[in-house]
């Protein structure tokens, strides 16, 4: 009898201890499920529904949308374009952003904070405003730069910028640059301030120090910056929408058009899900590669 009395409160204490993590994480879990898991599941389900010009969305399970994406070369081309643009943007931000961060890091106090502000400043301005700036500079015959170059007689016809992949890559690289600079900057902060002097004292020249000592140590920073820039560029909407318009579509603008112009929600959902899955695979895959490669020295 006494044994029962003794164990009952103990058991309930155990139960409470076991429940505690769930209770404590419940608010966050509910938010996560409510705003992410449920809509995402619904989008996945939506991508298997049927759609017709006159009948609208029919909640059936068919592979029509996926088959269309898989067979129509239009979608393949559009996805290749999306990832090509994202890759080029990533390369440009890495090539310019890494040296930028290195130079910034070597500046003295006052200049450093000033130029850091210059680099981060654009983040305070809307992407739309920044992209429209490019349109004002290069758009058609009336773009400022085109007008100037033409009046100087340097070019006969306006530089093509709007509705070109080049234009998209340039504008996206501009928008994404701060993320790369910040990422490399963070890696540079972890560098021992004496490490370049150490290499110098061992007889290394300045280019050797950059190549053998500095670069290998900031590669993880460049790579994590690249992952951020790549995924943001591949899923970017505003910049491709303004520069590319409806003539040069990428995955994000296509999904938008299917949802809001054609009203073919199931197809738009399929495009969006495919973009998501592809991005997750690329990001997780490259992250795993990076971690394996740099585990020894940087864990």
């Amino acid at each position, binding site marked *: 009898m006494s044994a029962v009395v003794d164990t009952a409160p103990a058991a309930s204490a155990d139960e409470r201890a076991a429940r505690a993590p769930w209770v404590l994480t419940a608010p966050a879990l509910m938010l996560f499920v409510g705003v992410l898991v449920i809509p995402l599941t619904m989008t996945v389900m939506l991508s298997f529904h049927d759609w017709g010009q006159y009948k609208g969305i029919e909640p059936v399970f068919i592979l029509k949308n996926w088959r269309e994406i898989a067979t129509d070369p239009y979608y393949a081309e559009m996805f290749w374009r999306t990832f090509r643009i994202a890759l080029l943007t990533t390369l440009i931000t890495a090539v310019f952003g890494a040296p930028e961060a290195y130079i910034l890091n070597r500046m003295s106090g006052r200049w450093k904070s000033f130029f850091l502000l210059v680099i981060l400043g654009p983040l305070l301005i809307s992407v739309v405003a920044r992209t429209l700036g490019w349109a004002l500079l290069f758009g058609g015959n009336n773009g400022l730069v085109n007008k100037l170059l033409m009046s100087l007689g340097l070019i006969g016809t306006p530089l093509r910028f709007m509705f070109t992949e080049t234009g998209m890559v340039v504008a996206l690289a501009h928008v994404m640059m701060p993320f790369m600079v910040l990422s490399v900057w963070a890696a540079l902060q972890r560098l*021992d*301030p*004496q*490490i370049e*002097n*150490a*290499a*110098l*004292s*061992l*007889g*290394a*020249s300045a280019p*050797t120090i950059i190549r*053998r*000592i500095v670069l*290998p*140590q900031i590669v993880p920073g460049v790579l994590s910056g690249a992952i951020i820039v790549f995924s943001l560029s591949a899923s970017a909407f505003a910049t491709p929408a303004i520069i590319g318009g409806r003539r040069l579509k990428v995955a994000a603008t296509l999904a938008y058009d299917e949802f809001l112009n054609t009203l073919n929600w199931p197809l738009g959902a399929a495009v969006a899900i495919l973009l998501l899955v592809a991005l997750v695979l690329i990001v997780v895959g490259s992250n795993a590669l990076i971690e394996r490669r740099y585990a*020894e*020295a*940087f*864990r």
Partner: protein
Amino acid sequence: MAFLELDRLCKQFGAQTVVDDFSLAVGKGEFVSFLGPSGCGKTTTLQMIAGFLDPSRGAIRLEGKDLTAVPPANRGLGIVFQSYALFPHMTAAENVAFGLEMRRVSRAECAERVRSALAMVGLAGYEERYPRRMSGGQQQRVALARALVIRPSVLLLDEPLSNLDAKLREGMQIELRQIQRTLGTTTVLVTHDQNEAMSLSDRIVVMSQGRIEQIGTPQDTYERPASAFVSQFLGKTNDFAATIDRTVAPARLVAGSWNAPAPAGLSGPVTISIRPERIGFADVGLAAKIMTRIFQGNHWLFQCASECGPAIVIRQNDGQPQPAEGDAVRLAWRQDDMSLRAGGAA
């Protein structure tokens, strides 16, 4: 001829003079320490020798050749940094091999020299370890091996042991000294730790506010400090205000109830500087009361209130009975053990 010569070296940052008129001649194979509190210019001087900073004035000569115009990469000096500054993306062996690669040493010779350098610092078998996987002491050894493997003409050590715990530091001091003796590498050590400077160096350069206070052997600087700063900085010391009374014949040196025949030269107010371990308890001498008595294993530490202000006395724990707290005692010392400076106590 001096092996490494610093000739009236000055360094100014703006209006601030960090190193002022620093002249020193280091002999071949000598181990010299720059000792001083932080901000005394010792690291700045080291960085000028290394070439990371340009002197504002003065010359640095190595075997008679001016080093000032030689870029740091070509000076051929080995440097161990306070933070070690190991290359984290390279293994211990790759770290040590870096300097040899820069010198285009053949692969076979490089491998052999790296192996023996790591063995010398007691890290045989750690070749493939990355620095992050090593303890502070091991990283320190890799840094030392990396600096020594290039057979530097001068080894510069910038507070190399300050990041190690006390026990490890003592062990490394002994090891560092042995390695330096074996290789005969001329070495300059920068440190703020007087024990480290004294146990390692042939000569100590005591610095304060950019100036040299004293250059001498550890024993010299400890027993015959040239200034109040040196005697205060190197170990514990007692400064007693005293006077030389030349109105009596023969003249007397008087500190409270302690007095002795006055030495020639000085007169009027003077300061007696005496190490705590050189003071003994006697029947006559400076009257004092023992305030605290601290047992420290091999010795006793007494803090006393004397006629001439606070006094510290250290007595060996040799089994003799020692006075207790609150006892009135008389402090006495041999005249040879003290040093005298003109002027009152600081």
